[in-house]
């Protein structure tokens, strides 16, 4: 089951440049929450702070508090590896491991953490690929073909399956459909719909229709600040901030 994400006074920097200012947000469990805003507004940085990917960038730094379920993400005893095991991530560009078969791609999270029980792995791989709606397309070439041999849309679903296989509680998606064609995009959106029954989903998107379609909650970022966070319906029909209204009506961005 998914857990909620609680963010408090989150500030993030790249070197001397501040990317996030005092962001506070309560992401509800088992719902999809969209993060929208113009390019460079900090929305990717925001989700990368939730699973401690932000700190992998050189000179990147951060202050504030993030709690996922009962886990203090930046607590003293919490390791980044532990956080990332519980918070899955799907990236903007599909990034399957090119040297691994489809099967090994999905099993990678478990195998690389020292889990080798074949029967369980087989089960997890099949279940994850089913959930990612990819099983029927790849079941005959699981171990024969490389993950990189699939089409772009298939690769992205493979990456979703790979993230699901480690059974995270929260799933972060950083513009997961922005590099895909409309049909693959709608497949991914359908998937998000099903996944939120079991997971908490935070999805960054450039596409406001997409946010309206898949997410119950939406946060609007502008220049590193969270301007408004509310029910998606409210954001798109009756935003309380003028800047949100300007953005969603296409006056800038």
């Amino acid at each position, binding site marked *: 089951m998914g857990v909620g994400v609680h963010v408090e006074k989150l500030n993030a920097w790249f070197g001397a440049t501040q990317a996030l200012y005092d962001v506070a947000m309560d992401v509800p469990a088992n719902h999809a929450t969209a993060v929208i805003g113009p390019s460079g507004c900090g929305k990717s940085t925001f989700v990368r702070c939730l*699973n401690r*990917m932000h700190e*992998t960038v*050189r000179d990147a730094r951060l202050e504030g508090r993030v709690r996922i379920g009962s886990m203090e993400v930046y607590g003293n005893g919490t390791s980044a*590896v*532990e*956080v*990332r*095991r*519980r918070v*899955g*991530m799907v*990236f903007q*560009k599909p*990034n*399957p*491991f*090119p*040297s*691994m*078969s489809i099967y090994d791609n999905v099993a*990678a*999270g478990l195998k*690389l*953490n020292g889990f080798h029980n074949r029967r369980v792995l087989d089960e997890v791989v099949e279940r994850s690929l089913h959930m990612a709606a990819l099983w029927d397309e790849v079941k005959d070439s699981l171990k*024969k*073909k*490389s993950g*990189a*041999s699939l089409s772009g849309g298939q690769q992205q679903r493979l*990456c979703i399956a*790979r*993230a699901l296989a*480690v059974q995270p509680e929260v799933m972060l998606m950083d513009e997961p459909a922005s590099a895909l064609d409309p049909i693959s995009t709608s497949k991914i959106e359908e998937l998000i719909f099903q996944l939120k029954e079991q997971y908490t989903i935070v999805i960054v998107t450039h596409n406001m229709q997409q946010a309206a379609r898949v997410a119950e909650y939406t946060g609007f970022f502008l220049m590193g600040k969270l301007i408004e966070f509310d029910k998606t319906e409210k954001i798109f029909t009756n935003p309380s901030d003028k800047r949100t209204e300007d953005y969603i009506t296409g006056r800038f961005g």
Partner: protein
Amino acid sequence: MPNDLITPKADAPERSPSQQRLLDFRRKLTDRLATGFAALMAVLVIAPLLAVFSYLVLRGVGSLNLAFFTHLPVPVGEQGGGVANAIVGSAMILGIASLIGVPWGIGAGIYLAEYGRGSFATLLRFTADVLNGVPSIVIGIVAYALVVLTQKHFSALSGGVALGIMMIPTITRATEEVLLLVPLTVREAAWGLGVSRWRATLSVTLRTASAGVITAVMLAFARIAGETAPLLFTAFGNQFWNFNPNQPTAALPLQIFTYAISPFDEWHRLAWAGALVLIALIVGAVAAVRLVASRGMMQGAS
């Protein structure tokens, strides 16, 4: 349609059919010339290699027989004999060199690519480049001072140390280069799964770059396999069988050297045959590693 690119646009100057034909002919001619030039260069690269190899076959193949591979060298005047002990000795020395050079070189390459920042990394890169240019005889002297003088006797071990040191810079720099070619997104995918940094580096980044790393190792191996100078006062050579890495040991390049500088025609023939065998063994080893490595590759992996 690629044709759209070369058909004139609406605002391009009008051309008569004959002008157009001339233009087409010029384009085709340029294309042929460029292709021909590239082909010529390719031939020029392969030609010396083929010339060396065919000359070796011509001069050496006559002295090749089963005994050459199974017998010990014989004294001057006696017929027959072989270089079996030198083949075994070379394998032993190259094995020791690889045990030293491959993990060391790959490890340093990983450090430079994944963690190497700041002045220490710059120093390391500079040192590797300088080491790459140090004459092999100097490396031999280093191994002599480090191993031979300490142990007070020549050995396969000291030869392996000399050749192993020579492998390190080539492998280090090439490993760094190919690891840096692996996109950051692939590393991020592994980190995002909760895979620890060292695990991600070994099982994802290094594995993704494995074809390039193998090429680097084979290049370094081929380069040292024919080295003679560093072995002169380390492995030293041996007229008899030796399987003890801590004793003076025969090596093919040394044996070829001994035969080649001798005044005897029979020994000259043996030197040619030895050179042929050395080249064939190197080509065979490189091809075998490539074959085994390519089996592990996935269909469609890029």
